[in-house]
């Protein structure tokens, strides 16, 4: 337990201290959403109809920006060797590092989303569900990204390959995420069934993705 907390805290501290990572993701999210209305014109009805989709697609891309950092630094400086020899099983190490990625990327992005919803004329009464849906869906993004990050360890320019590997796996999160927010903003369906699907996707990724990531890590360390 102490080991797990030490690892999680160290990862969050490092991301915070190395700076840039959180700021880049938030800045990217802001810019992508901000330029969308410029490209589409000032049709408020159109904007509020496509707002859930734009917010989710931009969130997926922004969360991928820092995904290759999940294991890369530890692999480069040899820390990963020692993490495999610690008291924690490797899937748990992968899970903790994914969780730290979620806390430093998914959570800030989800909290920024309502502000960007304003830019897209998203109805204000759907903001609580927007944040809730994003908080429920983003763990799946971080944990699945960990699979891609571990598979592309040791490659140069791994970021693009990582995006190619992982983005198709994000499709279910995108579909149910947009469905939940759309239902909340324009109706008429209830937003809760897609919201529960988001929760299910995240829970499944939390359980399964670390196992796959750990297997890929073992292969990368050979």
């Amino acid at each position, binding site marked *: 337990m102490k080991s797990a907390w030490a*690892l999680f805290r160290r990862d969050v501290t490092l991301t915070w201290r190395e700076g840039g990572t959180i700021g880049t993701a938030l800045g990217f999210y802001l810019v992508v959403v901000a330029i969308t209305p410029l490209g589409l014109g000032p049709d408020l009805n159109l904007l509020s109809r496509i707002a859930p989709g734009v917010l989710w697609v931009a969130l997926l891309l922004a969360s991928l920006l820092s995904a290759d950092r999940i294991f890369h630094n530890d692999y480069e400086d040899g820390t990963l*060797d020692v993490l495999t020899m610690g008291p924690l099983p490797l899937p748990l190490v992968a899970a903790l590092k994914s969780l730290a990625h979620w806390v430093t990327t998914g959570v800030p992005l989800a909290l920024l989303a309502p502000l960007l919803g304003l830019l897209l004329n998203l109805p204000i009464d759907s903001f609580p569900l927007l944040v809730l849906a994003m908080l429920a869906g983003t763990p799946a993004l971080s944990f699945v990204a960990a699979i891609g990050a571990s598979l592309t360890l040791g490659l140069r320019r791994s970021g693009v390959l990582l995006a190619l590997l992982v983005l198709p796996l994000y499709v279910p999160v995108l579909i149910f995420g947009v469905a939940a927010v759309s239902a909340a903003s324009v109706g008429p369906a209830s937003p809760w069934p897609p919201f529960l699907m988001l929760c299910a996707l995240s829970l499944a990724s939390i359980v399964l993705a670390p196992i796959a990531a750990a297997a890929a890590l073992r292969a990368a360390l050979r």
Partner: protein
Amino acid sequence: MPQPISLAAHEISCQRGGRLLFERLSFSLKAGEALLVTGPNGAGKTSLLRLITGLLPLQAGTFEGGDGDVPLPELSHYVGHLNGIKTALTLRENMRFWTDFLGGDGSGLEDCLAMFGLAGLADLPAGLLSAGQKRKLALLRLFAAPRPIWLLDEPSVSLDAQSVKMLGQAIARHLAQGGIAVVASHTPLKVRFTQELPLALEQLP
């Protein structure tokens, strides 16, 4: 140190990138014994150590050691070519992390920093250290939590003469307490190695 520890290899083989590095290699170490692995570059010294840590899969042969409950990697400290320190964290934070992660009690932390002359630098980011100081910080991981088997890969790289002596004394102390050390090194260390394992470079056909 818990119960007496041992480490033995039976007829292990190692193949890297289609090339056979060594085969049918055996050794056996009891508590308090140290093994020096020598050989030219590329002979398989690092691979041998990584086989013991479980980072490389064994092609043939077996390792024996530990007490059955705890697997070999969790009884071992491995300090390889890469230092495994975080440049954004201070020296003390680096040490604190390894202590907490590896399950040490952190009691001797300050003494360890002082032993290698790093006490005054404890609150500096590790990124500001010189290569030799980074190496010393990596070696301090050996004291973050007590583990009976030390696997050291070229531990004296970029250390000054004084620190090499300190390292030799630290290894000797570890052996005296019933530990085991497997060291791959080109520079002579002031440690009485009980066994030496010379690895030869296989001739390419």
